[in-house]
């Protein structure tokens, strides 16, 4: 048993439309960032830098972060 040609055509049309729908929230998100000037991916890098402990000669805690 095979798929009806009309059903096949409808599936193809709908699959193409689906690809746009998949992309829609991602496109909208970046559009929002563009409008607001927000760049959350940079904040993530910044946070990582902040959690590094410091241990050098000028540190008064003598290497301890307590």
């Amino acid at each position, binding site marked *: 048993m095979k798929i*009806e040609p009309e059903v096949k055509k409808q*599936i193809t049309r*709908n699959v193409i439309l689906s690809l746009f*729908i998949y992309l829609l*929230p991602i496109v*909208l*998100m970046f559009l929002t960032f563009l409008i607001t000037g927000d760049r*959350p991916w940079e904040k*993530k890098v910044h946070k990582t830098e902040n959690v590094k402990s410091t241990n050098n000669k000028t540190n008064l805690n003598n290497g301890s972060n307590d």
Partner: protein
Amino acid sequence: MEATIEFIKKIVDNLNGFGFPFLVFFIGILEFSFGLYKRKWPKNERYVDIACFVLPRLVVQPAVAYFSVTLLPHIFPAFKNVFSWVPFIWGFAIIAVADDLTQYWYHRLHHQVPWLWRFHRTHHSASYMGMAMASRQNVIYTIFFSQIYLTAALVYLGLGIPAIAVRVIKSTITTLAHSSIPWDKPFYKYKVLHPIAWVLERLISTPATHHAHHAATTDDGVGYYKGNFGNMFFLWDIIFGTALISRQYPKAYGISHYEGDQWYAQLLWPIFKSKVEGSELAPNGPMVRIDLDKEEQHLNGNNSGNLKHDAAVLQPSYSNN
């Protein structure tokens, strides 16, 4: 705003922990207490429902956990949490679309591609509706539930919290859409609620629209097993023209030619085959068997054009015996 999102995240996390199992348990008690299965839960069907509910939790979920915890870091070590910067709201939107639209297609293709129908037949064979229907699936259908892997991949990429939020909301909507409790009825009954009903029935799956998909008949104004494929969102059916909204509930559910295939055949076909002669799950059974009433029409020489069409768009029907 951030505090509100944090609060929502905490609620979602708690719901995922104990809320959903509690919801399923609570609806289950309600369905049985009010006799909503209408004393139509034969032993064979009970075995199918229970096995389908338990097996995915013993096999599929550990497999997906293995896939996401072991395999992904091995294949894509540099991609772990690479998208953890995505704000919760956007993560939620991306996953909701990715997960549910993929499931829409997975479901639709099992109805429209004849070769795939038998992997989904178990979900439609019961002559009743209930929350147990949500997980009543052939094990192959469950294993290849593509959107589970997609979600696992998104979690690995750093979208874990929004993924859990989508999971909680989606499980609740799909369980309630399959349930025999018609929670949407008041929205159709009271005029003041009609605007909410209009939005609701187009946005998410409701018992009325999803029960129509499980109906024994189609094209009678109520039953519509040729469409209403949406799981969490009904919107996909609206967009792709596969929707039927009637605000009514079918009189009979299931497959017209169903004669109680053994529970193990329904769970594990094609590994185990049905002993019911002429069944789609039998060793020499047809790929798709047409509805009984259409078979009769065909034998009487009527309506042959429709017959061809119905056989291609597939499947069930059921006489409510």
